[in-house]
């Protein structure tokens, strides 16, 4: 078998053994409680009491901020390869990137002007 596959298979096996071992070990060594107290069924038995249910609607404001973040964040995938190769690309590439970032900045200014970043 291909050694690359062999190591992947070994990794899988180890992962399985560790996970299963933890469960089986807990079952064998653990002390079982005899009484069923209500706190045992809580989400966090010794922590903060959860309030409400997890399936609530989030305010669209979160989307707005998240979207702006993702949009500007993704633009870095264009900037990173450019930055790594700037030495070979020369001055013209610098000018191109200035134009690119300039347009991005205009978009950012637009978002600010529209109040998209303010948290009312």
């Amino acid at each position: 078998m291909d050694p690359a596959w062999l190591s992947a298979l070994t990794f899988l096996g180890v992962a399985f053994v560790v996970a299963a071992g933890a469960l089986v070990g807990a079952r064998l060594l653990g002390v079982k409680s005899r009484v069923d107290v209500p706190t045992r069924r809580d989400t966090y038995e010794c922590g903060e009491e959860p309030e409400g249910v997890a399936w609530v609607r989030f305010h669209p404001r979160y989307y707005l901020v998240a979207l702006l973040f993702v949009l500007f964040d993704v633009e870095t995938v264009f900037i990173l390869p450019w930055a790594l190769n700037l030495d070979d690309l020369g001055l013209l590439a610098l000018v191109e990137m200035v134009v690119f970032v300039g347009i991005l900045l205009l978009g950012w200014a637009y978002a600010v002007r529209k109040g998209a970043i303010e948290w009312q």
Partner: protein
Amino acid sequence: MTTTAGLAAGPGLHAWLLLAAVLFCIGIYGVLSRRNLVAILCSVELMANAVNINLVAFSRFHGDLLGQAFALFSVALTVAEVGIGLAIVILVYRARKGIDVDELDLLRG
């Protein structure tokens, strides 16, 4: 032109194509069968990611960077697309107080 040297250490091209095809089909199925708009958006995203897997796999297969460069563009465009999609979903939600596609039947004939 075509080199498979880079693939020797991993599964072959067909494995990646299969993975991408499965993902793509899950995406198609999701778009067609889901009634929740956000779920439809997720399915569209799945289709786009299937394409990205294909592009990168082909890029390795051909031994050039064209596919990977395209994948970067594809990622950025998909993000913009989903951004607008979410905005439209919110627009529909505000107008309709719900995002179930079956309720959108104003235009027909």
